[in-house]
């Protein structure tokens, strides 16, 4: 490969890195303290927390989509895409939880409060863990793919039910509502940084997704080759017309 062709992607990656750094820096230095929170300075972490949550949802949606596609077409590449996306969803959900916990500690005094939304994300994390546990427990690749795709879809339908409706059906949540969208919520500059964060993280997600999917498909192809190579001791059928 020539220098030029590796230059392009490298530029892209550097740009992404810069963007993420910029968002981080802006989050801490440039943004004014958020009004209306008990601890305005630390509330800025929300610009990390929310994008993480949003990208986690995107990742989960992509994973669910590929699960459906796999069940229809039964092609292993779709399964790879689905599980990779789930892995990324797990990552981003973890980040969301962590940033949320930091936020919670600074605002409400404790890392974990059993706030309905916190419980909800905990369940989500458990579901992701369960997904990978299920995959690990099945040996046959085809079964593994179909079982995990089915579980993914099942969980995906169950989760919004139980995590959005439940928290919003009680009035006892500590999570501030409607902060992003209403006009007298956060400062306008927050929104810029926030959406920049979403953009940056989404790009990161896509990049990581593609890399891992490429790895996964490579592994698939390798397995295929190994299998075909062991073919020498194998069958070909001989059909003999025995009589009549």
């Amino acid at each position, binding site marked *: 490969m020539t220098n030029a062709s590796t230059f392009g992607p490298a530029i892209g990656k550097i740009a992404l890195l810069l963007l993420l750094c910029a968002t981080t820096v802006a989050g801490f230095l440039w943004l004014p303290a958020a009004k209306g929170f008990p601890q305005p300075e630390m509330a800025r972490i929300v610009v990390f927390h929310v994008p993480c949550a949003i990208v986690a949802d995107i990742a989960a949606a992509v994973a669910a989509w590929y699960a459906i596609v796999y069940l229809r077409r039964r092609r292993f590449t779709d399964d790879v895409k689905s599980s990779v996306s789930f892995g990324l969803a797990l990552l981003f959900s973890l980040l969301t939880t962590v940033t949320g916990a930091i936020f919670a500690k600074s605002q409400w005094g404790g890392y974990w409060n059993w706030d309905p939304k916190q419980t909800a994300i905990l369940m989500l994390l458990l579901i992701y863990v369960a997904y990978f546990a299920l995959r690990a427990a099945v040996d046959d690749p085809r079964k593994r793919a179909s079982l995990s795709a089915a579980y993914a879809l099942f969980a995906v339908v169950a989760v919004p039910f139980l995590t959005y409706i439940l928290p919003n059906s009680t009035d006892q949540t500590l999570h501030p509502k409607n902060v992003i969208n209403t006009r007298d919520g956060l400062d306008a500059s927050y929104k810029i940084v926030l959406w920049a964060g979403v953009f940056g993280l989404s790009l990161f997600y896509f990049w990581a997704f593609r890399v891992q999917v490429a790895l996964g498909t490579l592994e698939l192809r390798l397995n295929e080759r190994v299998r075909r190579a062991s073919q020498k001791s194998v069958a070909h059928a*001989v059909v003999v017309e025995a009589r009549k």
Partner: protein
Amino acid sequence: MAYGSRVLFSGIDAEIAPGQCLVVTGANGAGKSSLLKILAGLLRPESGKVEFDGRRGCAAPDIHLYGELTGDENLAFFARLLGISPMLNPALLTDVGLPPKRGRDLVSTYSSGMRQRLKLAASLLGAPPLLLWDEPTATLDTAGRAIVGELLAKHLGQGGLAVVATNDPAEAESWGDLRLTIGC
């Protein structure tokens, strides 16, 4: 045709006509059972197709019947699932050489030969057009083996198809109109 991490066989292309029996032979582990399972629809091949319309009756060593039910209940259960009247079941039992009164005993009390006969009876429920038998005479005594031959002949005589996997060369010889050997 690949399954799991082993490629089992490739390049099988066969057509069977009504009244014919295809015998599948091969060394242990060559893939006879897997082939039958694919024909039954229990396993999906990675490439290739099975074209067959209609029901299949199966009997195989690793397909079991319910131990906590009696022989009669087993047959009645599957008959109902298939939408067939269970009236003909007693006749089926005698066809495979099981005395009717043993039908009222729990299958867990059966000997392995008796279970095999019950499996064959179950595979014949509703006279399916295609019979898929994997080692049908395993665990059977000489009388039992003769019965299997008769049942097969009767089925083929009625225009049915059969695919039978066996390790016994004599059976392969006498039953098979067509023969498929797997493995080298």
